[in-house]
């Protein structure tokens, strides 16, 4: 389990659906071949009023957003840009397939919660500094802000759990195939 990532920390709320991978990391930076070089450019082109990547990303470890996060290009630079910023977990109503797979392939998590849970998170927490604790064994998220606390169960498949435990698909596949 040595490769396992951290899934706790401060939450960044992005109140929009269909955030695409061009917004997460613009194509201009795809010429970088070191993941670390992507760090300053995360969410640079996000179209979301009130959001300032230079101010809002720092110190955050988790993203909570709406539906179809990560649509568009297959670029794994999007999960990498999150990873090098210390964000290993995205929670959304739904994800684009390739983005979701890329996250688990990197040993990170893209977890779906029902719309009612996401609505509640935005309603109760998104305006306050919020932190999350993830319990992978019991599969629960515990959100905290201002003395308020909310716990949500989540589901990921056994395969996804194995990928997280192995630290990603390369390690898993090399051991199995």
């Amino acid at each position: 389990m040595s490769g396992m990532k951290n899934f706790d920390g401060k939450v960044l709320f992005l109140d929009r659906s269909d955030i695409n991978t061009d917004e997460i990391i613009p194509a201009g930076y795809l010429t970088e071949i070191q993941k670390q070089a992507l760090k300053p450019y995360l969410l640079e082109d996000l179209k979301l009023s009130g959001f300032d990547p230079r101010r809002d990303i720092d110190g955050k470890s988790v993203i909570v957003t709406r539906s179809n996060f990560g649509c568009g290009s297959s670029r794994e630079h999007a999960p990498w840009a999150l990873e090098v910023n210390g964000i290993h977990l995205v929670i959304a109503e739904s994800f684009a397939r390739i983005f979701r797979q890329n996250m688990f392939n990197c040993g990170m998590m893209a977890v779906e919660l029902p719309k009612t849970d996401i609505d509640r998170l935005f309603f109760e927490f998104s305006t306050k500094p919020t932190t999350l604790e993830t319990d992978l064994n019991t599969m629960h998220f515990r959100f905290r802000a201002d003395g308020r606390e909310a716990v949500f169960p989540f589901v990921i498949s056994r395969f996804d759990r194995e990928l997280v435990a192995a630290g990603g698909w390369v390690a898993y596949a090399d051991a199995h195939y």
Partner: protein
Amino acid sequence: MGKTAVEKIFDAHQIDNPFEDICVLRLDAVFCHEITTPVAINDLVSRGLDRVFDPGRIKAVIDHVSPAKDSKTALQGKILRDWARRHGISDFFDIGANGVCHALFPEKGFVRPGYVIIMGDSHTCTHGAFGAFAAGVGTTDLEVGILKGVCAFKYPKSMRIRISGELASGVYAKDVILSILGRIGVNGATNRVIAFEGPVVDAMSMEARMTLCNMAVEAGATSGICAPDRTTVDYLWPFIKDDYTSREQALAAFSAYLPDPDAEYEETLSMEVTDLEPQITYGYKPDNVRPVREMAGTPVDQVYIGSCTNGRIEDLRVAAAVLKGHRISKNVRGIVSPATPKVFSQALAEGLLQVFMEAGFCVTNPTCGACLGMSNGVLAEGEVCASTTNRNFYGRMGKGGMVHLMSPATAAATAIAGRITNSILYKG
């Protein structure tokens, strides 16, 4: 119970079923380009795993930025080039022989009905036009594909779209797929394969089917797929003529990958296209679609004809037919990028490039370039581009730029007028 085409392909390729609905598939081909592959190569090297599962099944091209525009893109090309040499990957296409991956690889005969193909590129779904399961993946899946020749997918769910009627003159596969996107949305086919069926698909050329399947991912689909038929066999014949005694025999072999009549689909949509008008996108999502007529008159700064969606010879013929005898507006920059060297030389031989040049277009070498805002036609802040590509995301063709997606005919008519224009106005 019957099976869909993709279920049959999965059944024929599954080598492991480690969990629930997870299928590990054997790959017939892994396609590579210089943007997503170098990181996989470097990671394999750093893990001490610098190997390839089968050099004959790996096809690689430098296409996104070609010729290299700066030291970084030169290095990406070099990493891919050195790796192809080191591993004896003979199907490697460098400058002079290179073109946009999803136009080049079909042209080389690398795609066959029933194949499973992955590439580190979301528009890999294009190759479903041949009755293959072809899916875009990230760099990690690509890396494992290169190393082991396998990839994991969930057992596929399919959505069927039956397209009937007859396309009016001036209306093309691009208009059909845009109208489908407008109807089902950018999330409408997530985690599903779209099976395109019906008389309109049957009547389409392979080029048109590729345009259709190309944008399946814009609806979130894992891939698009068209049933292999006589058109597929005719296209592939030069590459398969030694494998089969006749075209009929090839067709019979490929029919193993036809869907059963009682196959189950999660959803079936029917579309009647006889009254379909030319379509265009208007916002920053590919499902923001309306008839061109409703956008007519919107000024544009640049017109781009090219890409894996619409940079093939048929597309250039259609655009040249509209442009012939006209000059493009003084307020517009016209750029055409034939998608492959073969398309380029065909367009040259047919006099199409002359038509483009006389109209005032700049003709570039085959490359992705402007499509993803990396070279050969990047927009300035606030500029508007009429484009035959597949994505209109904010900043896609240049920071702060706006992209309207449309067919080559609409793009050509728009270039002449300098404003979004229904191509039908320029017919005869």
